[in-house]
Structures are given as structure tokens and as C-alpha cells.
């Protein structure tokens, strides 16, 4: 078969300034790439970010909140209603849910299913920088989601406006502490339902038994360790403290921060190691 007739085409010129070794902050190019990809489903992101807190506030404020009249907040806390007790935890939950989704399906999508990270790895970007860029992308997504959540609960007067930045940071830190899930996701070569199991057997129980909707002390003592190991419990407790006090519990707050930072850092480093192994075989 002869070659088809080809129209005259222009051909690319050599670039004015040649390619350079990617700089130290090249991880940002990965983040930039992922954020650009998110633009394709931005309406969904915005609708979910606004719709979710509104629905939750309606459920817990107008519905469940009307039934729970007892003050469940710790002694000395400025929170007086159930909605105030639950709102910081709900904000953290939104970041936690997003992180658990991105650190499982998001990793699989870019690493295994579409192999986008393999394309990135063929450039001057190092595998570790891909991990950094991905974690930064998830953090930015969490800032948006938790930020909208914070704006909604502040607008409803549930949480003081001044506490929102600290709450958002707490939510993001709690979400980053889900990063060990990304280590697991990056090790999986062929996903065959593992993530669905993780969501049901690990993420859902952690969400429900992390002292988010009720104090952890309500659970029998043998179930309370689920909360202790849950990033969400640490984030929710820290968020409540930052929003409402009591002011004297700085030590406990610092412990929550230390645990979250340690787990997040461990997951992040683990992701760098596993991604490097996967992409440089």
C-alpha cells in the first residue's frame, strides 16, 4: 500500500532556550498538571464542596441536633450545641474522605491505570518529585474542600470565623495522615476490588468510630483504640480544641499534632520510596 498523500505541514523550530534540568521545585509541575486535569470536572468539585456541608449541617443542625439537647462537648469547651460539637469534625471528615479517595483511586489512576506517572518519569522529573507533587495536589484539593466547608459553617454562625483557617489546616493535616494508604495503593499492580474493601473495612469504620459524631468515650473501652489510631480522631479533637477550647489542653493538642505530622510524614516518605521502586524497575 502506498503512503497517503500528505498535506504540506509546518514543522517545529528549535526552542529559543533549550530544556533544562528540572529545578528543585519541579514537583510543582506535577501539581500543576494534576490541577489542570481537575479543571475538567471542576463543576462537580465545586458542587460537592458546597453541597456536602449544607446537607450535613441540615442533617445535624436541624435534624439530629434538635434531638440531642445534651451538651456533649468536653468540660470547659465553648461549644454549647451538638452542631458546634460536630462541625469541626465534619470539616475534618470532608478532607479525610477526599484524601482517602485520592490516595487510593487517584494513585491507581495515574500510576497503574493510565500510567500518566510513567510519562512524567521519562522527563527530568524524579520519582520522588512526582510523589511530592501528588501530595501537594491532594493538599490543595483539601484546602479547597475544607475551606468551602469552613466558609459554610462560619456563615451559619456555627464556628467563629477566626477559627476557620486553623480548622482548615487541621483538616488538611488529618487528610495528609491518610497518605499511608497511598503507599499501599502504589504497591498494587492490578486493582481487583481492594480499594472497595479498604473503603468499607477501614475507611468507613475509622470515619464512624473516630469520635466524629459522638465523643469517643461513648464507645466501650475495647473499641476506643480504633479512634486512637485514626487520623480523623486526632484531627477532629484538635479541630474542636482550636475552635472552642478548653484553652488549657495544649499538651493534648500538641500530641494530636505530633501524631498527625508523624503519620503524614511516614506516608509521604513511604510513597516516595514505593513510587521510585515502581517507576524505576
Amino acid at each position, binding site marked *: 500500500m502506498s*503512503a497517503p498523500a500528505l498535506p504540506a505541514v509546518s514543522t517545529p523550530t528549535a526552542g529559543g532556550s533549550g530544556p533544562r*534540568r528540572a529545578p528543585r521545585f519541579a514537583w510543582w509541575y506535577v501539581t500543576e498538571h494534576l490541577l489542570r486535569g481537575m479543571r475538567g470536572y471542576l463543576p462537580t468539585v465545586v458542587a460537592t464542596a458546597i453541597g456536602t456541608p449544607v446537607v450535613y449541617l441540615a442533617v445535624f443542625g436541624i435534624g439530629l441536633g434538635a434531638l440531642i439537647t445534651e451538651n456533649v462537648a468536653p468540660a470547659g469547651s465553648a461549644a454549647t450545641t451538638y452542631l458546634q460539637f460536630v462541625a469541626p469534625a465534619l470539616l475534618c471528615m470532608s478532607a479525610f474522605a477526599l484524601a482517602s479517595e485520592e490516595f487510593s483511586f487517584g494513585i491507581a489512576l495515574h500510576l497503574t491505570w493510565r500510567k500518566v506517572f510513567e510519562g512524567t518519569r521519562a522527563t527530568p522529573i524524579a520519582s520522588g518529585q512526582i510523589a511530592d507533587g501528588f501530595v501537594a495536589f491532594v493538599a490543595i484539593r483539601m484546602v479547597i474542600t475544607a475551606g468551602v466547608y469552613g466558609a459554610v459553617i462560619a456563615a451559619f454562625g456555627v464556628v467563629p470565623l477566626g477559627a476557620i483557617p486553623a480548622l482548615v489546616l487541621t483538616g488538611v493535616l488529618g487528610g495528609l495522615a491518610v497518605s499511608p494508604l497511598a503507599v499501599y495503593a502504589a504497591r498494587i499492580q492490578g486493582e481487583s476490588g481492594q480499594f472497595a474493601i479498604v473503603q468499607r473495612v477501614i475507611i468507613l469504620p475509622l470515619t464512624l468510630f473516630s469520635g466524629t459524631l459522638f465523643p469517643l468515650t461513648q464507645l466501650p473501652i475495647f473499641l476506643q483504640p480504633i479512634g486512637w489510631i485514626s487520623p480523623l480522631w486526632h484531627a477532629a479533637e484538635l479541630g474542636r480544641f482550636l475552635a472552642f477550647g478548653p484553652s488549657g489542653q495544649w499538651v493534648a493538642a500538641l500530641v494530636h499534632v505530633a501524631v498527625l505530622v508523624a503519620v503524614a510524614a511516614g506516608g509521604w516518605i513511604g510513597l516516595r520510596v514505593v513510587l521510585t521502586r515502581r517507576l524505576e524497575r
Partner: protein
Amino acid sequence: MTLAAPSAGTTGAGAAGPVIRAVDLRKSYGDTHAVDGLSFEVTSGEAFGLLGPNGAGKSTTMRMIGAVTTRTGGELEILGLDPDRSGPDIRAQLGVVPQQDNLDDELRVRENLLVYGRYFGLPRAQVARRADELLEFAQLADRAKARVDALSGGMKRRLTIARALISDPRILLLDEPTTGLDPQARHILWDRLFRLKERGTTLVLTTHHMDEAEQLCDRLVVVDKGRIMAEGSPAQLIREHSSREVLELRFGSDRNEAAAETLAGVGDRLEVLPDRVLVYAADGEAALVEAHARGLAPITSLVRRSSLEDVFLRLTGRSLIE
């Protein structure tokens, strides 16, 4: 507009020296030796091919040249640098077209070029200008805003090549660039690659298609089980390892062996395959006349030029595509 020569880049290899030099290159995974002592050189502006069947070690070799996987042994220099030590510097000068497209389906066609150009640290304006030029080059300008998953296989391949060219690489690595494409898409792609070759871009490609190797490669190595079986230009390899022509005779699967016995002495050499008998001869027509003269009545007969497929068969006793 003519295609300018690739920029000199920032690495140490001079224009006269080899841009790729492999000496006893090895890569093992446990007890499996994927690459088992390859030695070759590629000079600037050359179109160099690695020809071999699936599992021959071609892709592993490409990954080592692409500075994404380390070698187990031997020496490897890309543009004068060691890929195990200077990976990012080397990758900054390479364009890579992987065996399986890894475009980002979440992005539009042009966006795939934009994000990729940024990975090379290029300014946004320069990446944007070059993306438009490359879309023209890849004949995808009218698809710039299309979704990637709406493209045909050939279009995706051309987009992947355009993406690999975004940084104006000195060496373009193509791992089985036309596998899975229909003949028309393959010809369009070959045309684009030929233009790059004319421009002076060094092409290194793997393939198990003989026609592709013959079309594009100035020089190639035949690889099997991680080792080089032969090296040379396509014409040279055919001249050295095969006859000028090949007569293909089909007698029916249960009669080929017996027919081959009758054909003994016809041509330079005989090869009995499950579905046909190959007679290697300088004059295929004369060999066919001789076959008829010996009382043979093949179901079909075909005289053709010798190809790299015949070279591979001769060297390894196996077909390229199994």
C-alpha cells in the same frame, strides 16, 4: 517552514562522537537476564533500530537508555553521561515514545503538550508556541481542543510523538511506535518520523516489524534473548545472512516436509515452516521452474525479495512475530 536541527543541548557529547555507547550492557531481574551483554554505538543523526521478537530485551534496553532504570552490569553512556548518575540531565535531552501510550485522558490534546513541556522547565510562552507547531507537525491542529479518548489509535500515537518532541530532544526513543496501528496510520507515522530523521534528530527505535526497520533504520541490531545476533544496515544484514530472493511454496501442512526432500539442492538453502517451504535463492523464478521440473505442484507460490524476517529466521530459527 523547514524543521530546524535539534539544539546542541547542555551535555558533554560532541557532534562527532557516539551519542549512545553501550558496552556489555546487562540487566537482570532475579535469575532472568532480560539484557545479556549488548554492545553497540549510535552516532548523532542516525536512525538506529533494535529488532527482535517480544521478550527479546528491547524495551528493557530502551528503559536503560531512557535513564529510568539502572543497569545490572556493563557500561552505558548517553550523550557522554552515565544514566545511573546523571538521569535528569540525560532525560532533559531525550524524547520518549513508550510502547503503550500514557497520555493524560483528563486533559485535552493541546493540554497534554503544555503540561509535558513544563516538566522540562521550559517557559510557558515557549511551550505554548512549540505545542502549536507540533500539533501542525503531527497533523492534529484541528484536534487541539479534543478529548484524548476521542482520538484514533494513530492520532494518539502522533500526539505521543509530538509530546516527546516538546523539549526539542537530541535523541528520540521510540518503543514499537506503530504496533497496533492500521497500515494507513503506520504510513503517516513513518512519514513524520522520516521528516525528523531528515532534520537530523537521532532516532532509536525498537520494532518487530521488518518493514518498519527497513523503512526507518540506517542501521540496526537483531536482538534475541537479550543478546545481539547480528548488526548492520538492513541491506547489509540481508546480503550477509540471506539470499537475494526467496521462493515461498505451499503444499499443504502435511506435505511440506516431503516436498522439501524433493527440493533438496534447489537454491542456496531450504527452510521448512509449518505452513510453507522457503527456498533461498539468488533467482527465485529459476528455483520455481526447477521445483516444477522435479514434479512438484505447489498450491501457491510466491517469489519475493529477501527481508529482515528471513534474516531473523536464519539467525534464530524462529519467526519475529510468534
